[in-house]
């Protein structure tokens, strides 16, 4: 099986970072200003953790394996005592199953989509002409775009928010901030590292000068940010990652992937298509998954950051493309038995 990509594909993916800078610079700075308010807490003011909460953490990302392997059910059933760190996209799913995360990460600056993870007060307007959620590998309830579902989510989040520390990035859109405040989260702010802060003209430095919040790397996705938070901010010794697939199951036809039509324009023959969807064999199961430029970019970011890690991290997703010689994979059951 492949487990590698062509040089051309890799080169294309390596340049994705630069596009993001052009795409988001203004939003990130504007949101940092808009989110500025007095008496805000930041990552430095997180209360210390002790006991089992300080020894290990589970990161709950929102990929398809989260549902397939009933991760939340297992954590609840086995009464996991370590810290539970969820991404915004898995918050409601956790709460629905009675699992209240200790921390929830949010960072995405999108002005209309992200607020939905918290229950959107402006749901109908924000979902008009937007099929983003129907294209995600997420809780099927989210795909249904149901007003009733959204209202139930608002009530659920409101009920538990004051028990959760929201680790909120200064790049968050103001509707997420407003919603989080209304729900009653215990909020801690931070900035994203988006370029070399040592550079006097860096955007990271510019954002830092707006609010003086500590800066943290994101790897480009909230799941990786959650892992960085566990590793570098909480200083966890052991971290289990779940729901971080960064790939498609081979049962998913190419035409169901999100970049199929764009990629298809550049091949002359159908047989060339596979080269644009490199395959990986997941080491624990021997199952094959394939990736696309976006997931591959996330994967590379994670593995690069992983080389800086101080923790012992296990990928417990049991599926996908996120593994390397140094990044161990194990089942969630095995991880829970170790901790």
């Amino acid at each position, binding site marked *: 099986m492949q487990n590698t990509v062509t040089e051309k594909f890799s080169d294309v993916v390596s340049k994705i*970072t630069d596009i993001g800078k052009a795409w988001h610079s203004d939003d990130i700075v504007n949101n940092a200003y808009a989110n500025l308010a007095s008496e805000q807490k930041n990552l430095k003011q997180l209360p210390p953790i002790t006991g089992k909460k300080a020894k290990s953490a589970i990161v709950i990302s929102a990929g398809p394996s989260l549902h397939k392997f009933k991760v939340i059910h297992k954590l609840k059933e086995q009464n996991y005592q370590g810290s539970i760190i969820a991404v915004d996209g898995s918050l409601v799913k956790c709460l629905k199953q009675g699992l209240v995360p200790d921390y929830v990460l949010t960072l995405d600056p999108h002005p209309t989509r992200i607020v939905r993870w918290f229950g959107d007060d402006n749901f109908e307007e924000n979902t008009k002409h937007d099929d983003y959620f129907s294209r995600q590998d997420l809780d099927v309830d989210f795909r249904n775009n149901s007003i009733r579902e959204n209202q139930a989510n608002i009530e659920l989040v409101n009920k538990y928010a004051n028990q959760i520390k929201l680790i909120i990035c200064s790049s968050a859109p103001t509707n997420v901030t407003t919603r989080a405040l209304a729900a009653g989260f215990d909020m801690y702010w931070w900035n994203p590292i988006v370029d070399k802060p040592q550079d006097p003209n860096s955007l990271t430095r510019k954002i830092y000068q707006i609010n003086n919040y500590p800066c943290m790397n994101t790897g480009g996705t909230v799941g990786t940010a959650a892992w960085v938070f566990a590793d570098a*901010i909480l200083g966890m010794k052991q971290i289990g990652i779940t729901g971080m697939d960064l790939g498609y199951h081979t049962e998913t036809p190419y035409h169901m992937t999100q970049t199929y039509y764009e990629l298809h324009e550049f091949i002359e023959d159908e047989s060339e298509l596979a080269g644009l969807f490199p395959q990986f064999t997941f080491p624990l199961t021997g199952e094959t998954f394939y990736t*696309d430029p976006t997931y591959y970019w996330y994967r590379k970011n994670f593995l690069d950051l992983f080389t800086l890690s101080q923790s012992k991290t296990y990928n417990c997703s049991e599926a996908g493309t996120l593994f390397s010689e140094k990044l161990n994979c194990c089942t969630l059951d095995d991880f829970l038995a170790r901790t």
Partner: protein
Amino acid sequence: MTDLLKGNFSTQKKVVLENSETPEDNLESKLKKAALNSIGGSMVYVERTDMTWDGE
């Protein structure tokens, strides 16, 4: 030289600039667009050299 000649004469035929974009450039830009589409324009970009930074 281009600047010196600019505007000094009119061509009889309309000059059409040859597209200097290589097929590879074209593919690259479109792949980038494809990646952005799949993210929905909602990513935060990254620098991979530091996990954290706090002023200095």
